[in-house]
């Protein structure tokens, strides 16, 4: 069979687009995510720019056919690098008529979105379900969605007795036809995802794939073409948690101590697999506190360790985080942020652990905080984090989030450098008369003695101590040692450059972002500038210390506004005034740091920011 089914394609008029947004939504357990991830991987392997976002319900198996139980994925593919999940979807595949409702309520679809809808419900034995289906059709029509009813179950039953397993691969075939995907790559992808299963299962899924492809070729009148990117680079494609895992490996980290928590855990699953082959080990601790205690013990004995968690875990680790800062133990902490507060929205994105990480510990606990803004940065920042942690004897945070964790994006294949990996544990004799905290009087930096180093014996403690490691309650010592621990941040800050300004150096509005919102802000600002709006943006990678030169940069703009996914009061809400308004987290810090009256644009909807929503805000601001 032709891998591109040329004859079928020739019958459809192909629409060429720069990019398209595709969603696959279903009940939990029907494999919508696997289908979409495969589609994304195939497209990436064909050279498209790709960005994916998973649509995840909070329960493992929510009730079927419910409006809130939608499980799925959004894939945005383009002929250029794709940096965010975009605005509304162009094509949606839905396995029942209930799951699209919540997506519509969230503004994920528009007039003209094409919905390929499983039609078996129209003839369901239950009258209630038939009615529901009819209601759905009417509702979608009202919203301007173009529904094409597809006999997925019917077609799948020709090949398998239980279409619940396998329909997703039939759908993949259908999408491959609609987007003219390379079927060789598609079949290779199926062989890869089912590599641990029997040959029968692999072959059955390939059959389903081909059947979906053929059916679409013969029956579906939509065809889109998204050209590949113009690039000679070698790319890899993975999600943020995999990138963090690989980054840990590249950083020479050999111990990852964790406790399962959504949405961080898959990074540990990845490491559990690959560490074993490269000298590392995962430790699943009995709880979050034990996880960081274990990591600190490992760091103390010379193997700088990683702990991975999310917001609730950070809260539990608070005491040990302060301890690591006080005892100056190198540690890498990855926080994959999720909706809060409290148990919140476990599978949804939020950027609201910043203040907790910075200031949650009692007393003054200076630390370095990095926030990757792309999946590529998730990889590289792990290497940076370990080096900073060891050079400066500090805990270093890498703030990721639920969207980076599960989203896929291709990036240039890293060229490995030997010096990324950690050197062997120093066991050389410790210099006589040098204390365990021999702070340089100006920089506060000191070398640490690792168990096994002759002459380096000392008792590490969280109690106030002098440079010889002796416990002391002396007022002067506490002042001085606190000063030196803080000094390290200023010393590190000297190595940083001011942030890049995207757009002009001056103008009417400057947006400031951090973390996974980079792509959406970039797209919005580019579009705004096309209409001559004088808006620029910067995107911070370092939140502690902050990148230098901010006040200067801000002074060249009439207004500065942060864009973030966390809570802030809306100035137009009842009772809210300039005096009592609670700002977004980065806004609070920047206001304090620069004394500039910085505004914020934020929400806690648990969704990635759509470029159009930011564009709308820019226009509101500048067209007054």
């Amino acid at each position, binding site marked *: 069979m032709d891998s591109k089914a040329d004859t079928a394609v020739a019958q459809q008029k192909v629409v060429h687009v720069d990019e398209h947004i595709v969603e696959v939504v279903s009940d939990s357990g029907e494999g919508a995510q696997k289908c979409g991830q495969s589609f994304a991987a195939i497209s990436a392997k064909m050279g498209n720019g790709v960005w994916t976002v998973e649509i995840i319900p909070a329960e493992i198996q929510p009730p079927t056919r419910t409006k809130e139980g939608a499980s799925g994925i959004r894939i945005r593919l383009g002929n250029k690098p794709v940096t965010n999940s975009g605005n509304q979807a162009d094509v949606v595949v839905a396995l029942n008529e209930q799951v699209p409702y919540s997506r519509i309520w969230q503004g994920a679809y528009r007039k003209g979105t094409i919905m390929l809808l499983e039609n078996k419900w129209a003839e369901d034995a239950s009258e209630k379900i038939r009615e529901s289906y009819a209601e759905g059709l009417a509702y979608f029509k009202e919203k301007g969605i173009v529904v094409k009813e597809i006999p997925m179950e019917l077609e799948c039953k020709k090949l398998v007795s239980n279409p619940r397993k396998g329909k997703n691969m039939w759908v993949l075939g259908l999408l491959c036809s609609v987007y003219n995907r390379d079927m060789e790559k598609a079949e290779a992808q199926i062989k890869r995802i089912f590599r641990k299963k029997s040959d029968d299962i692999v072959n059955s899924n390939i059959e389903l794939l081909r059947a979906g492809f053929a059916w679409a070729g013969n029956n579906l009148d939509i065809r889109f073409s998204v050209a590949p990117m113009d690039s000679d680079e070698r790319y890899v494609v993975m999600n943020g948690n995999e990138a963090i895992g690989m980054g840990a490996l590249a950083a020479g980290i050999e111990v990852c101590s964790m406790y399962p928590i959504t949405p961080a855990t898959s990074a540990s699953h990845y490491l559990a697999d690959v560490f074993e082959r490269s*000298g590392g*080990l995962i430790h699943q601790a009995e709880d979050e506190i*034990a996880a960081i*205690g274990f990591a*600190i013990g490992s760091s103390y*004995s010379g*193997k700088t360790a990683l702990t991975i968690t999310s917001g609730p875990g950070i809260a539990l680790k608070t005491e040990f985080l302060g301890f690591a800062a006080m005892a100056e133990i190198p540690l890498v902490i990855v926080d994959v942020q999720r909706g809060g507060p409290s148990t919140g929205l476990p599978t949804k994105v939020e950027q609201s652990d910043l203040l907790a990480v910075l200031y949650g510990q009692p007393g003054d606990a200076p630390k370095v905080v990095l926030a990757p803004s792309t999946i590529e940065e998730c990889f590289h920042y792990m290497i940076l984090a370990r080096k900073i942690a060891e050079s400066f004897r500090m805990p270093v945070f890498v703030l990721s989030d639920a969207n980076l964790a599960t989203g896929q994006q291709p990036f240039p294949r890293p060229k490995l450098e030997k010096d990324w990996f950690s050197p062997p544990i120093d066991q050389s004799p410790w210099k006589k008369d040098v204390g365990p905290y021999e702070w340089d009087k100006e920089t506060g930096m000191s070398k640490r003695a690792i*168990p096994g180093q002759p002459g380096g*014996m000392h*008792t590490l403690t969280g109690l106030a101590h002098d440079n010889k490691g002796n416990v002391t309650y002396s007022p002067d010592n506490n002042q001085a040692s606190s000063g030196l621990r803080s000094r390290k941040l200023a010393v590190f800050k000297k190595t940083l450059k001011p942030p890049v300004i995207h757009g002009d150096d001056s103008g009417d509005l400057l947006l400031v972002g951090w973390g996974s919102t980079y792509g959406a802000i970039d797209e919005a600002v580019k579009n705004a500038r096309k209409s001559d709006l004088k808006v620029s943006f910067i995107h911070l990678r370092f939140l502690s210390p902050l990148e230098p030169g901010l006040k200067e940069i801000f002074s060249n703009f009439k207004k500065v506004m942060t864009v973030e996914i966390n809570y802030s009061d809306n100035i137009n809400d009842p009772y809210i005034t300039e005096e009592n308004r609670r700002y977004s987290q980065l806004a609070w810090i920047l206001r304090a740091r620069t004394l500039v009256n910085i505004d914020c644009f934020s929400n806690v909807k648990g969704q990635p920011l759509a470029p159009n929503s930011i564009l709308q805000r820019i226009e509101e601001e500048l067209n007054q």
Partner: protein
Amino acid sequence: MFGLKPDIALDKPTKFLSADEYEKGMAKWCPGCGDHAILESVKRLCSEEQLDPVKTVFVSGIGCSSRFPHYMDTYGFHGLHGRAFPVAEGVKFRRPDLDVFVITGDGDCCSIGAGAWIHAIRYNMDMTVMLFNNEIYGLTKKQTSPTSRIGTVSNTTPRGSVLPPLHPLEVTLGVANASFVAQTADWRPEHLFETIKAGHAHKGFSFIHVLQRCPIFQPSLSKEMAGNRESLDILIHENGINMDEEKMKVFKNVVEHDPSNLNAARELASDHSKIHLGLFYQNPDAECYSDYGAHNLGFSVEEKMEVLNSEFDKYAI
């Protein structure tokens, strides 16, 4: 020649460390505190076995007990309340060459640290653990501990505590994979020494429950326990903790107990009418998590780069 091992001639002459040379500074516990006696026994062990201070790590939590590492001239980690075990596990995990001791107290281990305690037993990592149980919170100035007898008067229970105590031996013997459970007392220094020595020699999590006198906050209890010869038994067996006949003479009552018998151990532990000193249980074959930690060490940078490159190949476009 003259009975010397040939390889000694090749080593640099190593200095013989006396017990006092293992001590650092001056122990600041109250006069009469049982902790002083335990420190002496530990120093004696270090000297008798010529433990290398460079490779020895004492990990503690918070409490009077946990000041211990500050008084040893080895590596020490005075950590957080209730969290000594996870730290010690992390220290040992990829450093099988280090000799790890854990010092904890009845509040540190049995109250805030209870969760970590249960799991530490199960991990069964190769470390020597001493729980200094004085049945009271000393450092924070007299509150009941989970091991305090019912009716204990303290600053948080001025009319006497209302709950029966938790018994550390019963708890430890109830957890899966427990491999060494012993009890001793600070006022029986010979037995204390032999118990710590046996625990150190055991490969696995050696849990040593040390009855410890607090003359300041538990003065009558301390006097009563130390003076008690009637309800104090010593457990004996060829596989138990043994002392010469001379040293056994201080003990009035002797009980034969096979430490491989878990059920008998549990019965002894739940008999609160007597204090049994000795080895309650030992299983030399229990799984050691430290073996897991020690495997797959020593990969070179080149080997790691190779693995990472093959991962990139997998994820390549």
